[in-house]
């Protein structure tokens, strides 16, 4: 079997013809395999869904228990056979429950890695490299300028600012799934043990993480009447709420934003950010390159972001590579991939 016979891009998403299933389809299909709970990967309305227990749980939190007619739990490392094709889920280190899906048939193995990162993160299981013939990699930060710094330094920036401006509320825009919880964990790990206040839209997922063994300390939902009393506190809210009236009613807010895009000054300024925190749940350039070497695939398909530079890097390193243009990812305002405007 040739690789494109096993997995092929279609308008509905990445399709596996011999098994008649889709990976992360963007339209409702009969049977879907979902890598992780971000809204651009996990949509409601499929006939059947195969995903990790955490991802299924996250989809239920977001879309209600009836998000699909039939749920099937994928366990780490356990091969699920559909027709002649085997599907094995491996941790991707992106958000809680996030998986890479290894697809094998007739001695050929393709790994669709979904979104992934390599940096340490105690809120999800770490990425596991899987040797394969074709590696499908994301390229959200697929330019050599994206090199995420040590997260401890970024959190230090936040805590320094709190010390310097103790009368100002520090409001941080962060995506509701994954980023927000990781940020809380990082702040806790830096020794901050005061309550952390979160926007109402985040409360449920915070609870979900806690229930799945990720302690986040004292999390406090912001109620409207209390907003004025949050001077000197940390408030985390969805990116869309940062520039809203919602955030403006906080006392003298310092506007922070946690994202890999904060690396580029023009981007941070464009968003009116005063305290950019470079914290990403995607691999940076160095980690993308290291991962491609590590999985040892002679062929790489690049999707989901800055494909050109990574394809070029592969060519320079003797690896066959091509961009895989998949529609519909990174445009729903949730994942890190939402941030760029015109350039990507």
């Amino acid at each position: 079997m040739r690789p494109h016979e096993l997995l092929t891009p279609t308008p509905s998403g990445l399709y596996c013809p011999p098994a008649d299933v889709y990976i992360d389809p963007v339209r409702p299909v009969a049977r879907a395999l979902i890598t992780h709970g971000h809204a651009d990967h996990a949509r409601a309305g499929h006939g059947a869904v195969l995903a990790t227990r955490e991802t299924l749980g996250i989809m239920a939190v977001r879309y209600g228990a009836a998000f699909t007619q039939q749920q099937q739990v994928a366990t780490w490392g356990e091969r699920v056979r559909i027709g002649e094709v085997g599907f094995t889920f491996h941790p991707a280190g992106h958000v809680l429950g996030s998986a890479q899906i290894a697809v094998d048939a007739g001695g050929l193995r393709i790994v669709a890695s979904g979104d992934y990162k390599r940096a340490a993160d105690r809120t999800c299981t770490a990425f596991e490299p899987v040797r394969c013939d074709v590696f499908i990699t994301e390229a959200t930060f697929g330019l050599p300028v994206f090199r995420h710094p040590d997260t401890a330094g970024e959190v230090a920036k936040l805590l320094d600012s709190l010390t310097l401006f103790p009368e100002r509320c520090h409001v941080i825009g962060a995506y509701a799934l994954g980023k927000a919880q990781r940020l809380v964990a990082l702040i806790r790990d830096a020794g901050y043990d005061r309550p952390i206040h979160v926007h109402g839209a985040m409360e449920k997922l915070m609870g979900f993480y806690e229930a799945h063994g990720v302690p986040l300390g004292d999390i406090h939902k912001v109620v409207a009447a209390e907003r004025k009393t949050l001077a000197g506190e940390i408030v985390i809210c969805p990116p869309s709420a940062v520039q809203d009236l919602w955030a403006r009613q906080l006392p003298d807010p310092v506007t922070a934003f946690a994202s890999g895009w904060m690396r580029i000054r023009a981007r941070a300024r464009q968003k009116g950010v005063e305290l950019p925190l470079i914290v990403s749940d995607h691999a940076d350039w160095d980690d993308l390159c290291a991962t491609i070497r590590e999985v040892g695939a002679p062929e790489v398909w690049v999707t989901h972001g800055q494909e050109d530079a990574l394809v070029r890097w592969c060519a320079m390193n003797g690896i066959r590579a091509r961009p895989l243009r998949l529609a519909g990812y990174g445009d729903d305002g949730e994942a890190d991939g939402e941030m760029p405007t015109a350039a990507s």
Partner: protein
Amino acid sequence: MTADLNSFAWLLDRLAYEPRRNGKLALMTDYFRRTPDPERGHALAAMTGQLAFANAKAGLIRSLITDRTDPELFALSYDYVGDLSETVALMWPAARPRDGIGHNLPAPTLAGIVAALAEAEKRELPTLLADWLDQLDETGRWALLKLITGGLRIGVSARLAKTAVAGLGALPTDAIEEVWHGLTPPYEALFAWALGEGPEPEADDPAPFRPAMLAHPMEDADFDRLDPAAFSAEWKWDGIRIQASSGLDAQDRRVTRLYSRTGEDISGAFPELVEAMQFDAAIDGELLVLREGRVQSFNVLQQRLNRKTVSARLLAEYPAHVRAYDLLVDGTEDIRALPLSERRQRLEALLAAKQPARFDISAELPFTTWDDLAAARAEPGSVGAGADADAIEGLMIKRSDSAYVPGRPKGLWFKWKRAPGLIDCVLMYAQRGHGKRSSFYSDFTFGCWRTGENGDELVPVGKAYFGFTDAELTELDRFVRKNTINRFGPVREVTHTATSGLVLEIAFEGLQRSTRHKSGVAMRFPRIHRIRWDKPPGEADRLDSIERLMVRTSATGSEPEG
């Protein structure tokens, strides 16, 4: 935090994002507090524009990165980031210090970089720079590249940086300004003084800047309150307020500097004044351009501003001159504490003795009542200003016993600017307004008389939307409806002949020549000052009288208020 370039870079990074003045001050003061000498002093020098690395060009940085990265990857990255220094800082292939592992060599300090660059030969620069880039983190590399290419924009003025130093203790910023020009990086004595750990630094600069004394606008109520006998008055010239400071250094060499009102050294732009300053003194005055003894408008003076070098032609065509208002230092004696009347006598004596070319004294205006001054303000030409009246912005009224106090102290100096221009115009067209005024004719086009081919005609000179009360608007609206002679869509033409029509007294802030307007003039902020129901349109103003006004008013609003 260690005191290397990375930590200064952090400060610069935070400053670049912090929009609030107080936020910037807190960040800088905090940095100065926790950073030791001499590093913080070099940082202060960098932020006040006192560090000059003239060596590195963008080309050098490009060649360094080209040696280390794939051109295609670089092009994609540069295209995406849009800034050379930032692209190079981020792409630079250095061992990264993730989770604390990475560097072998400590990052360079700003002090070390300044010292090394001062000694380095040009050919050593690439190696030096590459080593530093290897040792710094992304933010540090960005700051270094911005510093050495002169591209650092952090949104902090020198004044604000000095205010942050003052914030280390209880010093006023002006106290730092006083000694500033006598100090050099790394300012150890300054920091010690600001922290209350050392004495005021010796100002050994023989020609330092002294912070300027500024005036408050004269309010109507002031006239009843203030006794005219306690004040002196002079013209407020429409030039650039300067300080001409000159003295001898320890080796008896003359040091001469011309400062702007904010303490910026502008000597380089006015070599003829520097040459003329053969005196030991600090003079507060107005920089003007004089041609054949006549003061030129601010527009003319503008040709001399913001220039690093000046050509012989410029010197000849725009000869600079200082009209002296005040004397702050006489010889080596600081006389700012003396009353203005005594300083004035000293100033007269100094100018009489030294007769410096290009310097004269600002005349005092005789007056006994405020009404005398009001008359002078209304018609400067009639009280001795002569042809220079056009370059007069108003009056300065100063307490004769006032000391020279930096900043804007209350109750000592006042400025009384000339009234805005007033002209009588004839209403020509009216248009419906917007919003709640949409049922009224509230946008008015008015004109002045000029001589046309068939005798006198009205030419539109401007449009006004406000200046009238609601009651007046109702009357104007009624006038428009009753006197319409033509309609063009939403616009009505109203009667406007020499004998029938409505005269509007229009107030405005300025006039400019304009090719877009039929009349050749454009008014700034025109508004209806009074409705002259009594005045026949034939007696309204003519265009040539506006053109005469133009010379006088065109220069207003150019320099921030003194």
